[in-house]
């Protein structure tokens, strides 16, 4: 009996040795929400668009999920079932630690902007997926992938507000966006999310209120997926 325990202990410690032998290092992943060259700030900061329109941003949140690192187009590291809510009002949410193997070589990062359809139908979840985060539709099930709210004089709405709640997981209006961004600085990944690029791609006079799944949400989600890039050092 005693020898059995001893064997078990030895076996267990061998296991842990193997675990520690595979040294992991943290790769930090930073998201830098910007408006053009300026760091994006909420509420009071006023920005000017390319067509000289004054604009304010009041809410910016979005989900990123299933982060993977690629080398020559092949996945070399993956964080499965990982869901992160990026919320500019919560600075901590802008930085993630990726537990990657030491000396991992990669030349691109891949991620989903939004929540996949399987997760959308899996019931209540906690953490970043908890419905209290304000990123879940209550009148028709589904996560809001991207929430961008602000004000612009071009919007002839109450308080000149524009409201984009973009999501949808059901065919043919699955708004999930899979993006791949080439990376040069691999020790610390720094991604820009340029809201100016998104705003410039739409006419706020006619398109200022999208809050349900459909064609418009698909179009805008696609526009949104193009505003991620590596920060130029």
């Amino acid at each position, binding site marked *: *009996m005693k020898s059995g325990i001893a064997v078990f202990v030895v076996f267990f410690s061998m296991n842990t040795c193997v675990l520690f032998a595979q040294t992991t290092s943290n790769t930090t992943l930073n998201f830098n929400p910007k408006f053009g060259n300026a760091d994006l700030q909420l509420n009071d900061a006023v920005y000017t668009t390319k067509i000289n329109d004054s604009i304010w941003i009041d809410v910016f949140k979005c989900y990123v999920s299933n982060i993977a690192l690629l080398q020559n187009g092949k996945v070399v590291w993956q964080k499965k079932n990982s869901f992160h809510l990026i919320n500019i009002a919560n600075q901590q949410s802008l930085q993630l630690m990726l537990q990657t193997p030491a000396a991992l070589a990669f030349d691109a990062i891949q991620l989903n902007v939004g929540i996949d359809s399987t997760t*959308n*139908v*899996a*019931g*209540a*979840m*906690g953490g970043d*997926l*908890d*419905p*209290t985060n*304000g990123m*879940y539709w*209550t*009148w*028709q*099930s*589904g996560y809001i992938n991207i929430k961008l709210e602000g004000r612009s004089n071009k919007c002839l709405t109450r308080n000149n507000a524009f409201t984009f709640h973009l999501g949808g997981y*059901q065919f043919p*209006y699955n708004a999930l966006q899979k993006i791949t961004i080439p990376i040069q600085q691999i020790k610390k990944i720094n991604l820009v999310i340029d809201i100016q690029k998104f705003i410039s791609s739409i006419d706020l006079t006619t398109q200022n209120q999208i809050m349900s799944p*459909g064609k418009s949400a698909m179009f805008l989600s696609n526009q949104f997926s193009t505003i991620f890039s590596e920060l130029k050092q």
Partner: protein
Amino acid sequence: MKKVSIVFSLLIFVLTAFVSVSQLFVVPKGWPKQGYDFSRNPLSNEKIALGRALFYDPVLSKNNTISCASCHNPYNAFAHADHQLSHGIEDKIGKRNAPALVNLAWQKKFMWDGAINHLDMQSLFPITHPDEMGEQLDQVISKLKGATIYPKLFYKAYQDSVITGEHLLKAIAQFMLTLVSSNSKYDSVMRHQAVFSNQEKNGYQLFKKNCNSCHTEPLFTNHEFENNGLPINKILKDFGRMKVTGLVTDSLKFKVPTLRNIQYSSPYMHDGRFARLQDVLKHYTLSIQKSATLSQKLQQPIVLTSNERVDIIAFLLTLTDNSFISNPNFNYPKYNLYP
């Protein structure tokens, strides 16, 4: 020897755990397997008790006046008697008839139009709808944090007194999952423990011929969305499932409801337009309105004499499960919510 006894006691422990979990939810003999994935929300007595407390507590509504049970009353088979449309805070009236809550573990889409995709997420709709409970989820949580009883109940259920949206929703789902009705006279007849009267027997034959393709046994629903030929109400302008899918082919389609405990769940239809079962039978036999999306199963007229309609109703009354209606485990919790 010692080893054997340890293994044996472990086995007993695992077995008893398994038995006690399965006792909280049993698939009735001959029924299909439930659709709900219990592995993501394993039942426990403590979680069910928490869900039950929440279900009966008006704290979920904005002005603390309306609970889930306000519109889903156990004595009406968890539906709402005498209200065609749901009745919310400040006497607001919704757009649809509160459905009976029963055998929800077998149901995969919720609301009359299937807008909700999971039982866990269902309670978010009435809690936040301005015409129902009109409250915000984070407000509910901050009220529960301040209440005397809830941090304790959440701790008992989840070994964590921090109240989260996930735990709140899952606990309410747990209570609803226990609402299984499978002890009606019909069930006894199927188990060869009782016999139908001649009238009920005739009604059952007619039911199988005319109604069973949508209201399929043993759950008495095929869980599909169908247009059952009701003319549209010009004020409500409710096109049903089309609003969810955006497909014109889903125009005027609504969820096929279960018929279990139908004796108690009046009024009937998505807008509660029929107060009596005889009105429902009259609709199906006399006033089906043809349209592009009318159910395939209603293309041929249903022909029934008035006696046959009465026989079908006699059969429908055998779907009443009094042990369900008066089950003390489903009623208002005995302990005082606010001592």
